[in-house]
């Protein structure tokens, strides 16, 4: 979803009011319990969305996406429904089947689960309606101003603003580099070739980003926007990043967003192994970013910056997504501080990858899913998903190690 430049009651609202609206809906999503309450919430948020006059084709796309969400939720809950009483509609794996039956305790489709899933998906619908309303009616720069009013750190707001400014530019660059690798004769028709191409593409993508970051930072300096000057150093900030470091961090925030774009456009439909594929590019770019600005605070700025940036431009500011970012940030910063090592060796890349994958997926299945979305999964399924998410992250870490070695060589010998 993107900002639409039209004039409606909602567009005229103060961005601060819309920020408050997001927070109220998020709280209600967690608090409301009964089907009728949830139905009411979804209806209200949908009516408010209509007031913002979403463009018809976009609305159709949104409805299609929401249809998929509702279907996925009701199917998954039909399998994993654990309340009583329950009626078996279909037996996929009998609990007496050797091995699989023993591990899973049998896989059955329950009638009550379908209804439960439909009701619970109203929570996701309400959040999506709310987010869409805010995103299509608020220009990103208005939202940044609202965020500045609630005093988010100046570094973070600089990162979000710079990311918004250079996103279209970076998308173009990325497209051209993908074209270039295809022109080399790479056929992206199988997994191993695609991996190889991904590894090759990262090197020019990141080296170019660093070159551009340097030019952008110099331009910011000569325009008087500085984090390096004496007055800036006096500021009461724990972080003390200089302009170049912040521009580099902004570029990695954009790269993280660009890396997950393919997943928004259809790859996320791959059932079961989605967690694996999603984790690879995300972890890889995150860790290369940390390696490029190896100090305390970088992880926090990249992860929180990415979370806020995607919320400002497409998901809507939403406190429900924040705990993910905070959990991920906390575990990585803690690891780097304790190990006193900002990704100097191959094993620290892999450990960092494993830690983030493990924590993020455990958070989802043990906290977000049961307490926010009221969705439940069988232990074997949680184990399987966490395992492949963690495996993907570890693999992402390994690729990050290889690419950052090449990038650093270019750096060391004056290529950047």
């Amino acid at each position, binding site marked *: 979803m993107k900002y639409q430049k039209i004039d409606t009651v909602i567009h005229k609202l103060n961005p601060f009011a819309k920020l408050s609206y997001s927070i109220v809906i998020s709280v209600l999503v967690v608090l409301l319990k009964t089907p009728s309450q949830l139905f009411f919430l979804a209806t209200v948020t949908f009516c408010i969305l209509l007031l913002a006059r979403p463009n018809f084709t976009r609305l159709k796309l949104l409805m299609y996406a929401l249809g998929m969400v509702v279907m996925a939720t009701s199917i998954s809950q039909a399998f994993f429904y654990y309340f009583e009483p329950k009626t078996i509609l279909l037996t996929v794996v009998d609990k007496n089947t050797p091995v699989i039956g023993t591990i899973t305790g049998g896989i059955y489709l329950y009638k009550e689960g379908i209804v439960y899933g439909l009701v619970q998906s109203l929570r996701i619908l309400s959040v999506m309606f709310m987010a869409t309303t805010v995103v299509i009616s608020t220009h990103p720069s208005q939202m940044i101003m609202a965020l500045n009013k609630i005093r988010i750190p100046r570094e973070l707001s600089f990162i979000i603003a710079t990311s*918004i400014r250079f996103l279209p530019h970076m998308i173009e660059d990325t497209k051209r580099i993908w074209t270039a690798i295809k022109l080399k004769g790479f056929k992206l028709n199988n997994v191993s070739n695609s991996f190889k191409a991904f590894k090759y593409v990262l090197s020019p993508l990141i080296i170019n980003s660093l070159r551009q970051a340097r030019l952008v930072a110099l331009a910011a300096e000569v325009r008087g926007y500085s984090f390096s000057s004496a007055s800036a150093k006096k500021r009461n900030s724990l972080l003390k990043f200089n302009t170049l470091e912040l521009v580099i961090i902004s570029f990695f925030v954009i790269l993280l967003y660009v890396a997950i774009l393919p997943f928004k456009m259809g790859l996320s439909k791959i059932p079961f192994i989605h967690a694996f594929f999603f984790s690879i590019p995300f972890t890889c770019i995150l860790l290369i970013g940390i390696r490029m600005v190896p100090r305390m605070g970088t992880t926090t700025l990249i992860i929180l910056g990415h979370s806020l940036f995607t919320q400002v431009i497409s998901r809507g500011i939403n406190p429900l997504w924040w705990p993910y970012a905070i959990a991920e940030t906390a575990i990585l910063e803690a690891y780097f501080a304790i190990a006193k090592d900002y990704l100097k060796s191959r094993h620290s890349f892999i450990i960092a990858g494993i830690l983030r994958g493990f924590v993020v997926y455990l958070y989802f299945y043990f906290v977000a899913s049961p307490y926010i979305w009221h969705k439940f999964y069988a232990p074997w399924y949680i184990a399987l998903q966490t395992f492949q998410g963690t495996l993907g992250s570890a693999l992402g870490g390994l690729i990050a190690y290889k690419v950052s070695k090449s990038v650093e060589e270019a750096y060391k010998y004056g290529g950047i």
Partner: protein
Amino acid sequence: MIDIKNLSYSYPLSKKRALNDINLTATEGDLVLITGSSGSGKSTLLYCLNGLIPHIFSGSLSGDIKVAGIEPKTISISEMARKAGTVFQNPEYHIFMPTVREDIEFGCRNIGLGEEIIVSNLNRASLDMGLNSLLDRETGELSAGEKQRLAIAGIYAVGPRILLFDEPSTNLDAQGKRSFREIIKKLKDSSYTIVLIEHDTDLFEDIATCKYVMEEGELKKISSIEHGSYRDKVTYEHHHDDTIVIEARDISYGYDSKTRLFNSLSIDIKKREVVAFVGGNGSGKTTFFKLIMGIISPQKGYIRAGGRLIRSINDSAGTIGLLFQNPDEQLFASTVKEEILLGPQQLNKKCDYEKIMARFDLKKYENSHPHTLSKGERQKVAFASIAVTRPEIIMLDEPTTGLDEKSWSSLMDYTCSLVKDGVTILFSTHNMKVADRYAKRIITLDKGKAIGA
């Protein structure tokens, strides 16, 4: 306004002096034109004038430098911005805000001007740079020339009396260059002191008050600019055959349904031709190349190239080679050797590695990281990695941008030497000198029409 005596500087970790014993003076109304090959130290000199050296770049600096009567090292970069404003090569990187108005105000706010002064400076800057009707436009939607003017306006609004430009006309087409020249002339006439670093010296030679050339960190005053040894039009031993290698028929293409970039465009190109595509920014040169490569598909019509109907990149990969405007975007490997061998491996083609390395004089860089080479050499590696797959057609998108004449002549010389092997060459350029010297035929793209096709 500018007074430099015996200035020397070397970057940290570098033994070589980037600037060696520089002397330069300029007063109000002076236009100082500095030329010289890439990497000779021109930009480094600007960094000394605007305070980036020593505030951002450490390293060893000696000698005296006074800008508007002040030593840059004694005040901060943002205070220096009020004395001497800098506009870098790519205006894209100068623009930070979503609208033209906010972006012009951005610099003023950063240095802490009061609201009233900001309003009057905004009005003056937008009027003088011809942006007053565009104030509420989104910066992302501006044309290349408008972005350039916005970059200048943002610096100018802060109120410096000295303006420093680093290769400002690089991304402009002929018309953009002319209007940029007018701006410079106007600024000079209002007694601004201007330092202008430029490859395309023809444009400013007559209005410059003094001219310098930078060579290996040494600044030499010259009376007139040498235009290299003037070279005649290249003559080709091999005439083109009658075989048509690129056949574009009735091509219609537009980014959306309303605006059509091309409307039933037909172009035939014969084997061994060398064709230059010229035309202003946005006339569709790059788009036409993308169509030939199958990167995008025409809404109507078809393209055949190298005997194949082009429907996607898969049809052109290996048959057509494309050198990007920014060759860095096509350097993937961690050594030059790996880079050169990557294409033949993927395309399952045999290649004569040693021959290509010798021909492009790259053997000495075999184990270097391609991105550590100079810009001209990086372009050469990118080109060699295309040539090694022996494509029938080679296309170069704006190959001269940001390169000095020596570098681009050497690239164009070896590109055009491939004609004798039966290769057909297409290139796009803003630089008429290149088109005149190398092309057998020039096609001008203008308003969806191809003149000379």
